């Protein structure tokens, strides 16, 4: 929660204190050097002030020992900061294995969130406390950047691909959510809040705001609506690969290479299907670029992700 004159941001995620500790460490080092140099400059300036108009300074040229010292110490300190910064960074970059996934799409100038349970929100995001949450995001137009100051995390949302960030909120309450990458006219209006709820309240909120349909179910509808089903079903006349259990598998491609079927791959398969052709299938799938929105792609992806492996099916993805 924001006080009226804040001096330090809320620490509302597990990572926040790690970031802040690093911040304090570098502040300490920086202060030390700032004070050291300032004091020396002042002391020298006073002590050795010019007393006679034609006076010159002592002819001192340098000292190798000193040079080594003041190269070495900053170097060691700098490497310390690097290693510390790197470990914090990797902790931010590496997503824990169990997360609650939420999809986000940035668009001039709003954030659209989709929960797997089917809820949609704009410029507001509800998350449970003490649960690792992962936000998978993309953009419909230009660069945006999803930023939660209280969690100390941000990530650019980039058109044409997915990026992600994660956090575990440790405090309930309402915190800022900003767009931190300049995106045009209403960049500063592309803000909102993240609401951290206790687990039970979150469940209640999920129930209350629910449309009754999970994201996967919405995707299933789209799957029929866009006639994907005409090709991607065991009974289809024109056969495309069965998508059951596809997510996370390694797919053999006609080009001889293989690729892991992640969200990026599914997205590409829908929007630019010819870019990677599955081995053994003709390149007949039409592109859906311009027909499905990024949000619908996410729903379709979520649907494909939800499909259980089809047991014993010959059409299961090749390995």
């Amino acid at each position, binding site marked *: 929660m924001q006080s009226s004159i804040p001096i330090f941001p809320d620490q509302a995620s597990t990572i926040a204190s790690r970031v802040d500790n690093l*911040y304090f460490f570098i502040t300490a080092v920086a202060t030390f050097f700032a004070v050291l140099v300032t004091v020396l400059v002042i002391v020298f300036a006073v002590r050795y002030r010019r007393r006679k108009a034609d006076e010159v300074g002592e002819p001192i040229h340098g000292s190798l020992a000193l040079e080594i010292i003041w190269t070495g110490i900053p170097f060691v300190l700098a490497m310390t*900061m690097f290693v510390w910064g790197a470990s914090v960074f990797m902790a931010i970059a590496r997503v824990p294995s169990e997360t609650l996934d939420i999809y986000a799409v940035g668009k001039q100038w709003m954030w659209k969130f989709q929960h797997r349970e089917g809820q949609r929100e704009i410029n507001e995001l509800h998350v449970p406390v003490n649960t690792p949450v992962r936000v998978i995001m993309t953009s419909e137009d230009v660069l945006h950047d999803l930023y939660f100051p209280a969690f100390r995390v941000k990530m650019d949302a980039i058109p044409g691909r997915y990026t992600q960030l994660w956090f575990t909120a440790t405090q309930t309450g309402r915190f800022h959510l900003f767009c931190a990458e300049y995106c045009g006219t209403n960049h*500063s209006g592309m803000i909102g809040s993240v609401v951290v709820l206790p687990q039970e309240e979150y469940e209640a909120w999920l129930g209350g705001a629910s449309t009754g349909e999970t994201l996967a179910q919405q995707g299933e509808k789209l799957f029929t609506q866009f006639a994907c089903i005409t090709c991607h079903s065991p009974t289809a006349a024109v056969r495309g690969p069965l998508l059951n259990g596809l997510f996370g598998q390694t797919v053999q491609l006609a080009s001889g290479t293989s690729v892991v079927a992640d969200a990026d791959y599914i997205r590409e398969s829908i929007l*630019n299907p010819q870019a990677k052709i599955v081995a053994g299938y003709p390149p007949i799938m039409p592109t859906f670029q311009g027909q499905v929105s990024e949000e619908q792609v996410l729903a379709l992806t979520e649907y494909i992700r939800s499909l259980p492996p089809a047991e014993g099916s010959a059409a299961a993805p090749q390995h």
Partner: protein
Amino acid sequence: MSTPITGTGSAVPAPALPERHYLNATHGLKSWLLTTDHKRIGLLYLFTITIFFLLGGLFALLVRLQLLSPQGAIMTPDVYNRAFTMHGVIMVFFFLVPSIPATLGNFLLPIMIGAKDLAFPRINLLSWYLFVIGGIFGIVALAGGGVDTGWTFYTPYSSMSSNSRVLTGGLGIFISGFASILTGLNFIVTTHRMRAPGMTWFRLPLFVWAHYATSLIMILGTPVVAISVLLVMFERVLRVGIFDPSIGGDPVLFQHLFWFYSHPAVYIMVLPGMGVISELIAAYSRKNIFGYAFVAFSSLAIAVVGFLVWGHHMFVAGETPYSALLFSVLSYIVAVPSAIKTFNWTATLYRGSISYDTPMLYAFGFLGLFLVGGLTGLFLAAAGLDVHVHDTYFVVAHFHYIMVGGTLMAYLGGMHYWWPKITGKLYPEGWSKLSALIIFVGFNLTFFPQFLVGYLGMPRRYAMYPPEFQIYNVLSTAGATILGVGYLLPMIYLTWSWFYGKPAGNNPWNVKGLEWQTTSPPPTFNFDETPIVTDATVLYGHPEEVKVA
């Protein structure tokens, strides 16, 4: 400490201007617009960039006024976006990049090495014309409504989405980029080929070393930003281009190309300032710079290693964590040469004969503010911390501390120091000290609060912001007003002194260096006879009498 100074200028009775010098050698507008004299071209640049500084400063004031109130006090977000973009573009490309090199560097570099001019005087003039043409495009873009992409021109916003004057503005930057390349080229060749007899590499003033390093960056980096801006323009005109994700292009690639120049460019903006400071500290301590070779080579190290760190602007932009870490460690390495410089400057003061003339006050100011700016760079280079502060006011404060607190201070310090050489006149001492003080105070009031509000999470490029950040913004705006006054004062009294100041004499500060051995102002070809350089020309406390052959 008591050896009396030896040198030409030790006892100058009532100095007077020389009869003939570069300013009165020829007359008329044409003699200026067609001049090939590096000193006059330096002054042409001085005049031009001062206009751009005022323009950029005007936009800074608009930005600050807007941020007085959380809802935005004076303009719509659209106008605000144009205001900060024009502020950044003008200040970087049309003011700070050329600031010290094209004015003081142009004026002094040949004199300091004992040459009659730069190697290519006409190319030097061409550089100024290109700069002016580029500037005119910038102003046309401005008159047509301005550019609203931020000074970084990120795609796809700049190429596909913005409906502002990206093409005209981009062209302006492209053209003025060549001005910068030509300046760098000229400096490099001049330093290699035009040194006077006896002016060995290790007798070169550190100012020259710094400009040599700067020039390397100018010639190696600028072409890359030129082509990237051109590719953006290409994409914008054709509506299809190589950064376009819808055909499989990568917007992040633009950022790589942009920062390949623009990170080194921040060293274009600071190295010449460091060169000035090395001269000032030596001069006003009447002492040779401590660890000359380390200071000289650290400039080169900054120039070279500075090319390896650009990805620290992209930690959260979609580059992989692995390259982020690589860029992080390299960023820390490039900080070390700056540390070396800082400590050597400090050590130079030890047992010096320190006077508090105005340029030295600026040098002290530089030390303090550059320190804060540089040290806050260490926060940003820590990848895990930058995730939080990236694109917040913390970054804005960081770079203003270095660019405004550091380089601008050095620029003003150098301008005061060499003003007597440039104009032959002394500036008013009292006023100049007062303005140095005002600038220092105003500066800190403007930008220190931005660190705090930045760490709190206030994003940059925001036309409106949550109300709890207001107090910091009000302080900042108050500071900017003071700062503005601080900057206007020198412009006024320096101009005044040009006409009414007291004649300075050849070496008013009683210091070393070839530039002080010629007249103030110097003759058109700098020296009446080619000087022969010895240790005594450049070293303090050298027993030998200075020879001007």
